[in-house]
Every structure is written in structure tokens, then in C-alpha cells.
């Protein structure tokens, strides 16, 4: 494997290849700033979005919601049973009992019919108008952050150098999957193949798709971009995609956090806060990656 201990910029130390653990300057201030702005805005957008969803906890396919016909693909609800009220979640016609979390939740004795539970929404009480205020405020932050990140990363080479997949990445993919499965991590300047796929997928696929499907739900924007809904399969399909992308982003977040914990949270956090990252000795050999700190 090639040596990857290479300083990316003049601000980094002139690091000789050595067998010592070495601090390198890994994340530019643009990457760090936008990372935390995303973290904050996605946090608020998720929780306010779940509140917005609670106003109509059903998803449909097509141009409109079916009331006299059935195009529902997902639903959260509550029903009365012999055992009292129960919450359920229905996915493509398959129903699951989700009492206590989805459909029917709340403090013991004070449960109410609710899509997502109050601990998962902003505000905690049902208030569609307020949730929309929060959601759209952070939508502006998110979009602005994405644009700033895109411009900065094109100029400083972050996208070309760190994210753009190379032939080597494809060759490395099987080994990379094996390494991840064994929780074997290389601490290098470069992102591994799965990291590139995950970060690239979020930044170039999921977030743009989130923004596009969000705009497609706006009747005002429909008059500006009328083809958007046709492209996406209709306004209600756009809403369903918007929700599905949320689920994928939450999955990404969970895996992201698990990877950070597994790879050494202090080192990972240091690099995304200060930019400085402690690398392992260059992996000439096949030794397992050492853990630091």
C-alpha cells in the first residue's frame, strides 16, 4: 500500500515517512465548519420534520393522496383493540405493532395517538406551524452550507483529492469491505473506499435529493419547476422519497457514529474540531492498525 502520510497544505507539518505515529493536518477549516453546521441543521430538520410528518403520518405514491383509492405505502396510526389502544406501523400493507413508540405513545396513563413520539419531535407538543418554522429556517442553513462546502471544496481540492473515486478505490473495495467487517481501521490521510462512497453518497446524492424533493412539495416552486414532480413521479411520491432519504440519513448517522467510536473517537473528533489527525505508521506491512490514545 502506498504511503499516505503526506501533508496536504502549507499549514501542515512537513511530515517525513516514519514509523512513529504522526499528527497530520487532515480537515480544512471549511470541512470542519460545514460538518458541524450540517450536524446542527440536520438534527433540527429531522426532529421538526418528524413533527411535520405527524400532521399526516401516511405516505403515498403518485400525484395525490388516495382517499377513494389505495396508494398508501406507509402509515403510522392508532387503533382500539380488546387490549386497549395500540399503535401500529404499516409498510406496504404489512402491519407491525409499535405501541409505545409509533402511533400510540406518551407517559404511562397519558398516552396519546401520535405518529412519532414527543421525545422525537420539535416542538415536543403537536404544533405543525412551529415545526415548519424550525424546518424551513434550518433548510436555508443546510442549503447555504452545502453551497459553501461545494465551492470551497472545489477550490481547495477536497473533492478531487479526497472524495473522487479512483481506479484504486474500486480495486480496494473488496479488501475494504473485509477490513470494515473485521473492524480493522487504517488511520491515514486518505478516506478509504467505503468512506468515499458514504460521504460522496450523502453529499452528492442524498442531500441534493432531499432539497429537490423538498422543493417539489412547494406549490409555489411547482409553478417554477413544473417538470420536477413529473420527474419524481408526482407530488406525493416526492414526499415519500423525502421521507425515505431521511431514513437513509439517519442510518448514515448511526453508522457514522459507530465507526467513530470504533476507529477511536478522540482522534476522530480532534480531526473534525481542530483538523489534526493522528495517523498510524504507514501500512507497508500487514500489521493490524494500531489503536491510538
Amino acid at each position, binding site marked *: 500500500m502506498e504511503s499516505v502520510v503526506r501533508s496536504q497544505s502549507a499549514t501542515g507539518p512537513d511530515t517525513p515517512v516514519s514509523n512513529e505515529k504522526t499528527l497530520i493536518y487532515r480537515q480544512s477549516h471549511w470541512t470542519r465548519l460545514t460538518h458541524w453546521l450540517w450536524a446542527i441543521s440536520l*438534527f433540527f430538520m429531522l*426532529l421538526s420534520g418528524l413533527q*411535520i*410528518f405527524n*400532521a*399526516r403520518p*401516511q405516505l*403515498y405514491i403518485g*400525484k*395525490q*393522496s*388516495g*382517499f*377513494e*383509492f389505495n396508494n398508501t405505502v406507509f402509515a403510522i396510526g392508532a387503533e382500539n383493540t380488546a387490549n386497549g389502544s395500540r399503535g401500529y406501523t404499516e409498510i406496504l400493507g404489512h402491519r407491525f405493532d409499535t405501541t409505545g413508540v409509533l402511533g400510540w405513545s406518551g407517559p404511562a396513563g397519558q398516552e396519546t395517538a401520535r405518529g412519532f413520539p414527543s*421525545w*422525537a*419531535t*420539535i*416542538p*415536543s*407538543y403537536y*404544533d*405543525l*406551524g*412551529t415545526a*415548519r*418554522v*424550525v424546518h*424551513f*429556517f434550518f*433548510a*436555508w442553513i443546510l442549503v447555504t452550507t452545502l453551497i459553501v462546502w461545494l465551492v470551497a471544496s472545489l477550490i481547495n481540492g477536497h473533492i478531487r483529492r479526497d472524495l473522487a473515486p479512483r481506479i484504486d478505490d474500486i480495486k480496494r473495495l473488496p479488501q475494504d469491505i473485509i477490513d470494515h467487517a*473485521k*473492524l*480493522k481501521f487504517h488511520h491515514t490521510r486518505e478516506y478509504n473506499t467505503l468512506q468515499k462512497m458514504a460521504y460522496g453518497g450523502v453529499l452528492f446524492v442524498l442531500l441534493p435529493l432531499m432539497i429537490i424533493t423538498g422543493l417539489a*412539495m*412547494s*406549490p*409555489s*416552486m*411547482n*409553478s*417554477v419547476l*413544473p417538470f420536477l*414532480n413529473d420527474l419524481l413521479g408526482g*407530488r*406525493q411520491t416526492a*414526499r415519500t422519497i423525502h421521507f425515505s432519504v431521511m431514513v437513509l440519513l439517519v442510518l448514515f448517522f448511526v453508522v457514522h*457514529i459507530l465507526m*467513530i*467510536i*470504533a476507529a*477511536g*473517537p*478522540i482522534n476522530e473528533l480532534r480531526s473534525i474540531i481542530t483538523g489534526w489527525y493522528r495517523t498510524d505508521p504507514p501500512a507497508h506491512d500487514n500489521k*493490524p*492498525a494500531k*489503536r491510538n*490514545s
Partner: protein
Amino acid sequence: MAKFEISRRKFLTGASLGVSGIMLSGCDAFDSQLGIGDGLRSFLENANGLTWRAQRLLAGRDSLAPEFTEADIRQPQRPNGVTAPDDDVYKGLLANNFADWRLEVTGLVEKPLSLTRDQIMNMPSRTQITRHDCVEGWSCIAKWTGTPLSLVLDQAVVKPQARYVMFHCLDTIDRSLAGDVKYYGTIDLIDARHPQTILAYGLNGKPLPVENGAPLRVRVERQLGYKMPKYLSKIELVDSFADVGEGRGGYWEDNGYDWYGGI
């Protein structure tokens, strides 16, 4: 082979970082700052103004909402909000098939009007198959027939200082200590004069039913459902809506919805 080693301290550090984000939501932390008029909420509401200006800039005056075909009308128009006004005045008018009903056009106009239903129906009409998007998330496609609002405004001759059209309705949407709250709403003159903004009296080829707003309701196709009042009785041209209701421009706006319901 690599062993997955993780110290207790490392695990706790990482786990607590992850979990703290989630616990933070426990999620009433922000509730007290998010009521109407609270500082944080007022700050966040600035984004609504930004959205309004951005969408105005992009959509301009005349960009049209998508229209659909007869084949897309697959169900009756789903009614919501008030569907059977309990008000004595309304019930009296309904009993007489709206023969005594009038649409008043008042406020900042040169020629105040009082139009009967026949007078409105004898004006040039427009029929459009459009999608109604409720703020809650559902949509429904239906065919609407009515008089372009711009024709009514032209007939009344709007004064230059007028900035908004205020719709007064016959239905009581809420009851407060101060008394009954009638539904009302406002749009600006750009949306009021939009070619698809009509005063609708027909739905799917039939007279507008009570549940959908008989005898007359507004359609503002580039905005959400709550911007399209039902059971109209009066159109008032105003230069400000600060003195009406809670001063936010409509019943739902007074309850926290944003004034420009374009998204």
C-alpha cells in the same frame, strides 16, 4: 488478525457523544422558546420572509401552477377545516339557496361592489384542474370553475395604496373568550391578480358543495390550502392587516402558520 479492542473509557466517551445529541431532544428543551412572539421563534421566522422573497423572485407574477387532465380526477375533493358552518347567518342563506347572499367588495376601492351569485356567474369564467396541497401533507386533484379575482378587482377599481386582499368568511372556525372567530385570510395583489386565482363556484362540473365552501371560495393555486378561504362573504382591500385578528394576516397565521403559504 486484528482484534477489535475498545477501552471502556473510549466506549463511554463515544457513546455519550452520540447519545447526548439524542437526549438533548428529550425534546421539550426548545418548547418554551418557540411560542408565537418568543424571541427564538421570531428569529427563526425570518426564514419565512426569505422564502417568500425567494419564491416571489423565482415564480414572478404569472408562472402557472401545474394543471392536470380529467383522468387525474379520481375522487371527490377532500374537504377539511369547517365543513358544515353552524352560523345562523350562513344557515339562513343556505336555506334560501344563497338567493340573498352577496359578495361585498370594500375597503381601498373606488367603486365598492355588492354582487349576487348570478352576477358573479355571469362574468367570464375560468376552469382549471389543479392539485390542492394541504399543509398537513395530503394532496387532491379536482376541477374548479370560477371568476378570475382580477376581473372583480378591476370592476371595483383598486386604489393605489391597497396592498392586500382580505377575505372575510361566514364560518366560525374557533371560539375564544373574546367571542366567535370567523375564518379570514389575506393574499397580496400579485397572487390576487394571478391568472389562476379564481373565486370558485363550481367543483368537478357541479355547483360548489357546502363542505367545500359554498357558495363561493378562493383558489390560489401557488399556495397551500389554508390560503384559500371558503364561505366567502366579503373582499376587503387593505394596506395592512396588522389590526385584524392577531395581526398576522389570517386565522391559521394567527395560530402560527406562515403568511406566505407557498411551501
